């Protein structure tokens, strides 16, 4: 079960990260906490991409996605950085208005 490392191992870790991220997004009231949840979700997905790219981890290597997986992961990382920047800018703007980053109070679209 613990040896050798297979795709399933990676998927389990990815699933845990993904679930924690989703729960974070749902359960946190702090806007930055929600943002961290998003990062976790993306990271869990990335882990799957990376694992899928490696043919040695599975018994049917022909189905491995190869370098495309790594490229996808790269794009996800870079886009996540941009997303974080925008989300942070929004959070700061929001904080400026309400002196708080509680998303439960964010119920109007007016700036």
């Amino acid at each position, binding site marked *: 079960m613990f040896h050798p490392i297979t795709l399933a191992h990676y998927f389990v870790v990815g699933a845990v990260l993904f679930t924690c991220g989703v729960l974070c997004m749902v359960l946190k009231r702090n806007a930055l906490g929600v943002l961290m949840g998003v990062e976790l979700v993306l990271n869990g997905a990335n882990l799957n991409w990376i694992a899928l790219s490696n043919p040695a981890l599975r018994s049917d290597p022909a189905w491995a996605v190869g370098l495309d997986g790594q490229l996808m992961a790269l794009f996800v990382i870079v886009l996540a950085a941009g997303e974080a920047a925008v989300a942070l800018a929004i959070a*700061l703007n929001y*904080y*400026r*208005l*309400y002196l708080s980053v509680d998303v439960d*109070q964010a119920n109007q679209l007016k700036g």
Partner: protein
Amino acid sequence: MVDSVVPEEFDLLTEEIVINMGPQHPSTHGVLRLILRTDGEVVREVQPEIGYLHRCAEKIGENLTVRQFTPYTDRLDYLAAMNMNLGWSLCVEKLLSWQVPEKCRHLRVLMAELNRIASHLVAVGTYGLDLGNFTPYMYCFREREKIVNLFEAVCGARLTYHYIVPGGVMGDLPPGWLRECSRFLDQFQATLNDLHALLTNNYIFIRRTAGVGVLPLGTAISYGCTGPVLRASGLAWDLRRHGEPIYTQMYAPYDFQIVAPQDGQYPDDGLSPPVPDDAVVGDCWHRFYVRMREIVQSVRIVRQAIQWYQEADGSVGEPMKIQQKLPVAEAYLETEAPKGQLGFLIVGQGASIPRRVRIRSSSFCNLSVLPELCRGCLVADVPAIVGSLDLVLGEVDR
């Protein structure tokens, strides 16, 4: 719906915070406390809180004879104790209508100007320190040590001299002292050149000080700013020339310039570098530069004083008696101390103990302009501005 909408929007940063700068802070030159209200790095307001070094000097003055009070004046601006002694002594002499011998006058000028050099050296050195440059500080203190050694040879003390007293000075110069003093002056200009290279002409230094903390002349006068702070704002006003006769007669034979920018330029002294383009009259750079140039002028005066002292005949005066009675009158005299105009007011009541002693502290007035200067500057500019005012908290708090 949230009603607690804050109407203001700030540039990039969010919440205003109130910070305590001091009384234990490396760049407040003693125990000054500044309350900063900042928005991120931008200072919205500065509120100085003073009094941490208050030693009731005026109250003490009401309980001692004027002769006994002389050592207490040392403790005001402890970096320029000679000038403090001088101001007090002249004020007492004004109240008593005394004249000291000519030789004594030249000796006093010699001491006062040497001490002005020492005080300005500390100001310049610590200003470099405020801007993050440690090395000029060591150079300045090395030179100041030499001056302090000279003072120690004269009066035995290195900080609180109690040398110039009402009626004269405590004693004549020891043999060989003038030669030592001349030797000091001869090697001194090299240090000034180093300081110009490290600070005055340094690009970063200029960027940190030029245009920062600009003090317009009208504001400076209204706040009672004096000394280099006033002169850096463009007014050639120096009590050594514009003061009361009992003071100006001391300096009458001496040839020196009043250092103040006229249309952004200074009279040429042949030793100092030119003014950079970025500098605005009244900014931190000019306040610093005025002190650098005053050092040069003081060196000139000291050289002349050595000459005059040697040529003068007679005694160096006699310290007044402790129980000297004062008339029922008041006398106020201001002198040009290194930090600005230092004034003493003595209200006599017919006894040897005065009714009231009042001290006009130059640093006190210079500090009071700080909230005006710091409005809207950056946090990093606050030490730059405070340092350029050259405060000594012993004089502010008295």
